[in-house]
C-alpha cells in the first residue's frame, strides 16, 4: 500500500494543516458529545424526577364514578402483585391557602403518612420537620418550600385553607422540597383532614403504587384494567406529553448535530482541497510513474481518514473535561421551565461510539470530493503547474 505511505508522509510533513483539520473535527465532535450528554442527562433527570415525584402506577375511579370508596379492598388487591412495593390511597384536590394578606392556590394531597411515605419517599425531601407528625397532628400540614416562601410562612405558623365555602386552619409542621415545580403548590394533609376540607366521606380520588421495577408498570396497569373497572395508568401514560416533548426535542437536536457535522465537514473538505491544490504537481508525477486514478483517490481519502481516530479521541476528551466542569460548577436552571433544577451531563458509552462514527464519516465524506478532484487532474497540466 504505497498510498498509505504517501498519505502518512503528507500528514507528517504538514503539521499545521493537520492541526486545523483535527481541531475543526474534534471541536465539533466535542460539542456533539456534550450536547448528547446534556440531552441524556436532562432526559434521565426528567424521568427520574417524574418517577420519583409520581406514583409508578395510579388507579383511578371507575369511569362513571368520581371517587374510590372501596379503597381498602382495592389496596389489598394491588398488594397481591409481586412487583408492588407500596400502596397509598390519596385524596387530591385544589384549594386556596391564605396567610395574613397573601393568598395562593395550592394542590392538596391527603394521605396517611404510614402508606404515603413508602410510596413517595416524602420524608427524604423534608427540609424541616417530620412528615410522620401528620399521623397524630390532625390539623397539621406539610408545605412546599417555595409556597411557604411566597406566603412568608414559617414552621409553626397557622394558615387557612379555603375551598368553596369550607375553611380550615392548619399549622405548618414541616417543609418539603422536591426540586420540582410542585414545591410552589404542594400541601400534604392527613387523609381525614383532606376529606373534611373537601367535604367528602371516607373516599379517595386515587390509589398510588410503587413498583420494584418501573418498567413493569405498563404490564401491571394493563392487567388491572383487564380485571377491574378501575382505571390504572402507568407513569409513562401519565407523562406521555413530557416524554413526547423530549422526543421532539431529540429530533431538533439531531438537526443541530447534522448542521455541526456539515460545518466540520466543510472545514475538512476545505483543508483537503488546499492540500490537493498544493500537491497538484506531485499528483501529476505520481500519475506519470504509473499511479492509477484510484490510487490517487486512496491517497487523499486515507489522508483525511487517518485524522479521524485522533479527532474522535480529542473530541471525546474535550467533551469529558467539559462534562466534569459542568458537574463541578452546577448550572442552576429554573425548575418552573425545565422541571429539573440543575443541568446534568450524562456521557454514555453510546455517545463516544457515535463520536468515533461521526468523525470517521465526516472525514470520509469530506475527503471524497477533494480526492476525486485530485484523481481527475490531467497529468500533463499537473506536472507543468507551479
Amino acid at each position, binding site marked *: 500500500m504505497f498510498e498509505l505511505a504517501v498519505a502518512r508522509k503528507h500528514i507528517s510533513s504538514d503539521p499545521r494543516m493537520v492541526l486545523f483539520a483535527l481541531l475543526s473535527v474534534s471541536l465539533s465532535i466535542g460539542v456533539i458529545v456534550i450536547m448528547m450528554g446534556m440531552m441524556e442527562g436532562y432526559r434521565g433527570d426528567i424521568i427520574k424526577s417524574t418517577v420519583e415525584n409520581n406514583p409508578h402506577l395510579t388507579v383511578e375511579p371507575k369511569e362513571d364514578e368520581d371517587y374510590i370508596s372501596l379503597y381498602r379492598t382495592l389496596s389489598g388487591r394491588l398488594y397481591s402483585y409481586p412487583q408492588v412495593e407500596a400502596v397509598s390511597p390519596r385524596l387530591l384536590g385544589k384549594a386556596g391557602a391564605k396567610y395574613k394578606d397573601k393568598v395562593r392556590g395550592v394542590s392538596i394531597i391527603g394521605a396517611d403518612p404510614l402508606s404515603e411515605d413508602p410510596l413517595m419517599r416524602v420524608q427524604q425531601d423534608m427540609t424541616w420537620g417530620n412528615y410522620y407528625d401528620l399521623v397524630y397532628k390532625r390539623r397539621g400540614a406539610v408545605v412546599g418550600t417555595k409556597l411557604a416562601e411566597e406566603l412568608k410562612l414559617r414552621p409553626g405558623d397557622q394558615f387557612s385553607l379555603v375551598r368553596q365555602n369550607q375553611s380550615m386552619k392548619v399549622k405548618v409542621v414541616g417543609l418539603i422540597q422536591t426540586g420540582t415545580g410542585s414545591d410552589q403548590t404542594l400541601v400534604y394533609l392527613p387523609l381525614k383532614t383532606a376529606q373534611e376540607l373537601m367535604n367528602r366521606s371516607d373516599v379517595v380520588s386515587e390509589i398510588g403504587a410503587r413498583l420494584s421495577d418501573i418498567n413493569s408498570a405498563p404490564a401491571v396497569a394493563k392487567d388491572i384494567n383487564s380485571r377491574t373497572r378501575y382505571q390504572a395508568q402507568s407513569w409513562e401514560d401519565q407523562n406521555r406529553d413530557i416524554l413526547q416533548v423530549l422526543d421532539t426535542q431529540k429530533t431538533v437536536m439531531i438537526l443541530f448535530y447534522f448542521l455541526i457535522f456539515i460545518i466540520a465537514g466543510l472545514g475538512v473538505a476545505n483543508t483537503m482541497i488546499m492540500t490537493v491544490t498544493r500537491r497538484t504537481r506531485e499528483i501529476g508525477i505520481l500519475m*506519470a510513474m504509473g499511479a492509477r486514478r484510484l490510487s490517487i483517490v486512496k491517497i487523499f481519502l486515507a489522508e483525511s481518514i487517518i485524522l479521524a481516530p485522533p479527532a474522535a479521541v480529542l473530541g471525546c476528551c474535550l467533551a469529558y473535561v467539559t462534562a466534569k466542569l459542568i458537574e463541578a460548577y452546577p448550572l442552576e436552571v429554573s425548575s418552573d421551565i425545565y422541571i429539573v433544577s440543575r443541568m446534568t451531563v450524562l456521557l454514555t458509552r453510546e455517545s463516544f461510539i457515535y463520536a468515533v462514527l461521526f468523525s470517521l464519516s465526516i472525514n470520509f465524506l469530506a475527503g471524497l470530493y477533494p480526492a476525486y478532484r485530485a484523481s481527475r487532474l490531467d497529468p500533463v497540466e499537473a506536472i507543468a503547474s507551479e
Partner: protein
Amino acid sequence: MSEDIIILKELTKIYKDGVEVKALDRVTLSIKAGEFVAIVGPSGSGKSTLLNMIGLLDTPTSGQIFLKGIDVSKTSASQRAHLRNKELGFVFQYHHLIPEFSALENVMIPLLIAGKSKQEARERATQLLDSVDLGDRLNNRPNQLSGGQNQRVAVARALANNPSIVIGDELTGNLDTKTSNLIYELLRELNRKINQTFILVTHDMGLAERTDRILRIVDGRLVCELRREGDGFVTSEVCDLGEDGGKI
C-alpha cells in the same frame, strides 16, 4: 535488426483552448528498441507534446500510437497507467522529486506502485542509487542535495522498474556542462548495457549530437531526421530545413 518499439501513425494533437492550436500535425515515426533519440526544435514546436504522447500522459486528437505492438489508443486509463509504470521511465527538466521524501523513498515509489514489497523496493532503490553514485545520500531529501544529485535521483527513479523506454524532457536543461555530461554518460552506458531505448527532448545541440538519431520538429511537423553513421550524421530523404534558416 531489432523491432520497432514505438510506432506513431499520423499523430495529430489539436488544443482547443479558445483558439485552435495544432500542436502536432500528422507525425508518423517509428523508433527501434535500443535507439538513443533526441528530439529538437524551437520552443513551442510540439516537442514536449510529442514526448507526452509517447509517454502516454496525453492522448492524441487523431492518429495511433503503438507501444511494443499495443495500440495505446484502444487501452483504458488504468491500462495506460500500468504501461507507464512498467514500460516507461520519466525524467523531467526540474527533477520533480517529491520534496518530503528522501532520495531512497523517491526511487521506491514507482516500485511500490508496481506492487513490490517494501523490502524489495528498498533493495532495488538502494542498488539504483548506488549505480548513480548516491549510495551515501540515501536518506537526504531533495533540498539537501545539489541540482545534479537530484537529477541523478530522478534518473534512478525513472529506471526503477527497468522500463523499456526512458523519456527525458530537457533533463539536462538546468545543469552545468560537467553534470550534464555525467548524466549523459550514465544514460549512454545503460543504453549500451541493457539496450534501453532513450528519447530525449533537448535544446542542447551538444547533447543531441551525441545521440544516434535526431528528430527535428517545427510547428508540430517532423521536418527533418538525422541518423548517425560512423562519425557523422546522414540526413533523411525529406529534410525541409527551410523554415527557420536551416539551423538545427
